[in-house]
């Protein structure tokens, strides 16, 4: 069995995010990059499958030079091959452009029986890439999966839906996007970290895939501006020591007129 895992590097959720000078991207200075947490479930699922049934696991990422590190971090957990589509930045953040580039990379490195991705990339949180890749490859996909059973011909996947669960049978090849709960990602071992740097990574340019990154980027979607959420304004304290009834009246008035919640 051949498995591809689509992975991406994202800013650590513990980093302090600032908007960069362009107003359309974050300021990357001082940012710590981590594997997108949902991708960790995807990686774990692939490695578990390799361990239990035997499979070859290929990690594929699209991103700037530094993103080769995300492949190393995946290798520290397991896996066999890596493909790094080195981007210049033109299509970063554009889900459809990214999906087209990854699809081309999947085709080049494939064929694959199973493609895992995270349900969404933490940070931009669009949740589009996995499904788009499936569509572009013209294969089925199951999104937001929390449990998988592997059968002879296909797989059964449990996915979260509003207020319940949906159980889906799907034939291979297919794309699965991983949701929290699918498994418990392992911690890399020291041996794994040491072995990671020796794992083969194929570095390709977008042009090598027959695509024009600049033309793809922003063709269907552009980032117009980014802004931090407004700072929380200070809470209002109504002092009620002297006249609790007046304070209660004032509270009710504010809830009705200012907060408009009653």
């Amino acid at each position, binding site marked *: 069995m051949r498995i591809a895992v689509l992975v991406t590097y994202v800013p650590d959720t513990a980093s302090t995010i*600032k908007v960069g000078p362009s107003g359309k991207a974050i300021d990357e*200075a*001082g940012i710590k990059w981590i594997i997108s947490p949902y991708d960790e479930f995807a990686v774990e699922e692939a490695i578990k499958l390799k361990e239990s049934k035997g499979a070859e696991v290929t990690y594929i990422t699209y991103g700037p030079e530094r993103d080769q*590190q995300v492949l*190393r*971090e995946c290798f*520290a957990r397991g896996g066999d091959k890596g493909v790094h589509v080195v981007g210049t930045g033109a299509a970063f953040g554009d889900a459809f452009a990214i999906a087209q580039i990854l699809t081309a990379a999947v085709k080049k490195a494939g064929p694959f029986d199973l493609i895992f991705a995270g349900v969404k990339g933490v940070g931009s949180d669009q949740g589009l890439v996995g499904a788009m890749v499936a569509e572009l490859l013209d294969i089925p996909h199951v999104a937001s999966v929390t449990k998988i059973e592997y059968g002879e011909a296909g797989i059964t996947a449990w996915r979260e839906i509003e207020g319940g669960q949906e159980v889906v049978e799907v034939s291979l090849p297919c794309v699965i996007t991983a949701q929290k709960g699918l498994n418990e990602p392992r*911690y*890399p*071992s*020291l*041996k794994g*970290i*040491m072995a*990671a*740097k020796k794992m083969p990574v194929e570095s390709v340019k977008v042009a090598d895939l027959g695509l024009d990154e600049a033309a793809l980027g922003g063709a269907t979607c552009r980032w117009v501006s980014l802004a931090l959420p407004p700072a929380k304004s200070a809470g209002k304290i109504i002092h009620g020591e002297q006249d609790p009834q007046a304070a209660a009246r004032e509270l009710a008035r504010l809830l009705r007129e200012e907060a408009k919640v009653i």
Partner: protein
Amino acid sequence: MAYQVDMRDVKFQLFEWLPTEKLLQTERFSQWAKGDLEMVLEEAYKLAAEVLAPTNKEGDRVGARFVDGKVVMPPSFREAYQKLCEGGWISCINSPEFGGMGLPEVVGTAINEFFFGANISLALTALLSRGAGYLIEKFGSDEMRKLFVEKMYSGQWGGTMCLTEPQAGSDVGASKTRAVKQENGRYLISGEKIFITSGDQDLTENIIHLVLARTPGAPAGTAGLSLFVVPKIRVNADGSLGQPNDVQTAGIEHKLGIHGSPTCSLVFGPNNACEGFLLGEELQGMKLMFHMMNPARIEVGLQGEALASAALQEAWQYAKVRLQGRHWTRLKDHDAPQVPIIEHPDVRRMLFTSYAYVQAMRALLMQTSYYIDMTRVTEGEEQERYQSYVEVLTPICKAWASDWGFRVTEWCLQVFGGYGYTQEYPAEQYLRDAKIASIYEGTNGIQALDLVARKLPAKNGKPIRELLGQAEATFKKLRNDPQFMEPAWMLGAALKQIEDISKGLTKRPDAVMVVLLNSVPFLDMIGDVLGAHFLLEQAALAREKLWALCQEAGVERKDEGAYKQFLADNADAAFYHNKVHAAIHFAYRVLPNVTARAVAIRAGEMGPMEAVL
């Protein structure tokens, strides 16, 4: 709050201050690149914060328990210990031949800081497995090495060091445990050991005790001790487990801190059937044991530093959110809002003094670990020189870092006010857990005696002269620097005091008494001087980097507003800025104490000896 480490400072000390990258060019460490080490540090931190730290509170509240003659560890420790083992973390610095990962010691020190800070009780079990395994690797027969070492390095089997007996605490030479040679070459061990860390636990399937015992007719004192490998469960020739080896756990201590670490009384041979294997030769026991104790002493110092660092991170976060009192610029304004206590100068003082001490302790421990690495990649005279540095620095690491580590936990508790005294916050646990470091592995009093009686006079005092010579070089380098001039001169003055005392003391008729009375303050003086030297050296480096960052960003340092804004926006700049101030703060607040203590020592003040006690 989640467990936090000061990764920025750890990386500064490892990669910007120490020439760790040069180590990686040596053959021994050539399989590691800087990028690998950074990943190793990040993953170790993650494991410490996400897996070890969450079990720390249960370790304290539930504790290790003694049930039906056996120790039961806090339930949550099992999975955390398993993850430590699986990742290969226990023996990260040990030799690859037996499954170790062969990382440089200096990196191991950083990793172990994270583990001790996250959960010292659990990390102690790992320390002992690796330490005891190392001794067997170094001095065991091929057969023993094959049977034991790999399983101890992986954490599958635990280890202990058994020195202490009721009448033999600091006075190890008073041990009575006996070892009698049998016809098959093995020894029958009988006796009682107390205070044995991890003497029994249920995390590992076997425990390999290293026991100091006396053979028949052996001379009195430490010279009569031999060292034995005593498995809890006998091990068959093929490595599988056999029958229990007649080692009984009599009970565990109820104690101030490290509740998750069982401190056991062990009875060897209650049925006269406890088998031991001699390690090395008879009567060499104490000498061999020191090969486990010396690294362990540095690790105990590291425990003090690690808990101090953890306590500081907690206190710092708390001080940012606890609202109390008015801002010092508006003290008379009764309508002024309450401010986070981090605005109060006194709270800032407690935090920043802690900050400076933690970094000074870390520097001492990292520098010493780096010298250990250097002994492994050099030969001949050069190697001897590094070895002599490690020997002098070992008792200083142990005692100085454990004493000041404990005090830092006290200051950090103070930052929490009344809440710090309660179990609602971890401050009080850090304080209780940290105290043990000044006691075990040889009390700090014994460390100071080791320093003044053995280590300072070694090689006619050359090693200590060279180490203090480095501090002298820092003084000379910075004495004309406008910003560091006064701290540098204070360092120079403190060095002069140490030199005067070293020269003058032995000439006095009451020298022995004066030395014994003052060994602890004297060790402290040397620790203070080294700490100030490290911090000043780091500060000079940090300042260069800070200025370069300012220049790069086009920030005029004299423009106070712009500079402050720059520090607020740029975490690296703020870190370097703090380093500069930490060194100055430490010099002013600590170095005068060196001079003050020197006054008492030179005066020959004898109150404790004159008093009727």
